[in-house]
């Protein structure tokens, strides 16, 4: 269980409490500057709140050792940086750093992650030669190779075209189906509406709505939080936003 209890960080979060469930895809939505990335970073144990705490299985995330946290929570930052031109396989292998289980187990975990993301044919290709979509998958493979129980990703779909967005979302849904807790910061409300199990809406550092997508992203919430009069069209699972 990953939870936040009354997280406060001056100017960014003003008392956010929530409990996340494994096996679900949770989307964090909200206008620019609402505190989405800060909340995700707190839940990943990377940012310390001024008061309150992020809890993993009832224990505060800030407590050492950091490697135990790193094995439980995989974090995909917004800036997809890879400083050196390593191969896809080596990149995924970096996800094994918190584990000290030996080469055989590392190789098996990397192999499983590359297989899950259809990256085996590209295993030896340098990262610099990948397309945007392949690169996003390779970075996700890095997280999956660490076999975390939680996957926290900050706008993982931002730089992808629609087809690759849908493909990556399908991979993330598969992770949740396998029992992983998946938490995504998403800007695209239609993607959150159609693909998340649960949506958290942040507004000025507080939780404005929390629930299934059609409730948390209802038209009154859109008007109140985003200040946009918009309507949802289409069937559930295929909704589109008309502004």
């Amino acid at each position, binding site marked *: 269980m990953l939870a936040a209890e009354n997280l406060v960080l001056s100017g960014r979060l003003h008392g956010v409490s929530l409990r996340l469930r494994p096996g679900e895809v949770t989307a964090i939505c909200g206008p620019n500057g609402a505190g989405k990335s800060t909340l995700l*970073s707190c839940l990943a144990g990377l940012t310390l709140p001024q008061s309150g705490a992020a809890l993993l299985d009832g224990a505060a995330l800030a407590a050492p050792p*950091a490697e135990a*946290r*790193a094995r439980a929570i995989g974090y995909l930052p917004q800036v997809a940086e*890879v400083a*050196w031109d*390593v191969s896809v396989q080596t990149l995924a292998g*970096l996800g094994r*750093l918190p584990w000290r289980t030996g080469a055989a187990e590392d190789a098996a975990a990397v192999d499983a992650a590359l297989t899950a993301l259809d990256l085996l044919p590209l295993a030896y290709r340098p990262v610099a030669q990948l397309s945007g979509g392949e690169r996003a998958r390779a970075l996700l493979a890095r997280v999956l190779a660490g076999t975390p129980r939680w996957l926290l990703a900050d706008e993982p779909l931002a730089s992808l075209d629609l087809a690759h967005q849908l493909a990556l979302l399908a991979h993330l849904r598969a992770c949740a189906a396998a029992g992983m807790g998946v938490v995504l910061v998403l800007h695209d409300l239609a993607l959150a509406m159609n693909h998340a199990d649960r949506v958290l809406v942040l507004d000025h550092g507080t939780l404005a709505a929390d629930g299934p997508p059609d409730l948390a992203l209802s038209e009154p919430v859109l008007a109140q939080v985003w200040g946009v009069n918009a309507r949802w069209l289409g069937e559930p699972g295929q909704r589109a936003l008309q502004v």
Partner: protein
Amino acid sequence: MTRPIPLLLAALALALPLSLLAGRVWIDPTAPLGSEAALILAELRLPRALLAVLLGAGLGAAGAAMQGYLRNPLADPGLFGIAPGAALGAVLSFWTGWASAGWALPAFALTGAAGAMLLLTIIAGRNGGVVLFTLAGMMIASLAGALMSLAISLSPTPFAMSEIVTWLMGALTDRSWREVWIAAPLTLAGIAVLRAAGRGLDALTLGEAAARSLGLDPRRLQLLLVLGVGLTVGGGVAVAGIIGFVGLMVPHFVRPFTDGRPSRLIVPSALAGALLVLVADGLCRVLPLAGGELRLGIALSLLGAPFFLHLLLRLRRELV
């Protein structure tokens, strides 16, 4: 993927005996060893060759670790201000006249390096961030540089001034076993510390946030790096003066033969650095030059600058 370590070890094993034979007095390996030649070998050539190996190994490893830490292929060990700090210490030993006492110069230089390391950790060590750290290092480097210039301009005698300037150019001439015993433990300990930083440097490949999410402790990594660079570079400057370009160039030679992870670059860079300095110093001894021999620091910069420009232009072409 070729394995660089055995290859470099083999090259070193070949270059080391060859470098012992070369110099103003050439030693014929087939002839029986005279007493003069034996003296040259044991007291001049061997310590000098070992110093070249130690110095190059330290600079290569420090350069590889620095580039990994700053995630920048243009980083150089001098950037942290540790080499200038050590040089400042050495300059002060000349300035005060202590340098004539055997152990004073290296002791002063190591104190200077330690001072720079301490200052660096105090200024930048609070949050473990890379940007503040780099800026602090550059500040210390320029401060040490200014103080060195001040010491030179205020030097008590012209003799002291020329001593300082000559020493700053960096060389391995007339070094003895004493310098080997100073540099060996420092350099080897420093390389071991930098190796221990390897995991953290690998994690940093993904940027600071992702690295921390992988369990990296940024403060611990920073301390390991300051200590490792301080020991290798500080020890190197204490015995040989400032030798530029080795730390910058060597990781570039080695990187294509590794899988790209910074941790895999440190030991091969140490070996390649050792090879480069050993060969360069051998060439310095052999090259006929009016008025003495070419100083190692100058030679490496003469060699390094154009080579590095070539490398940059090639890199640019690949990017375009």
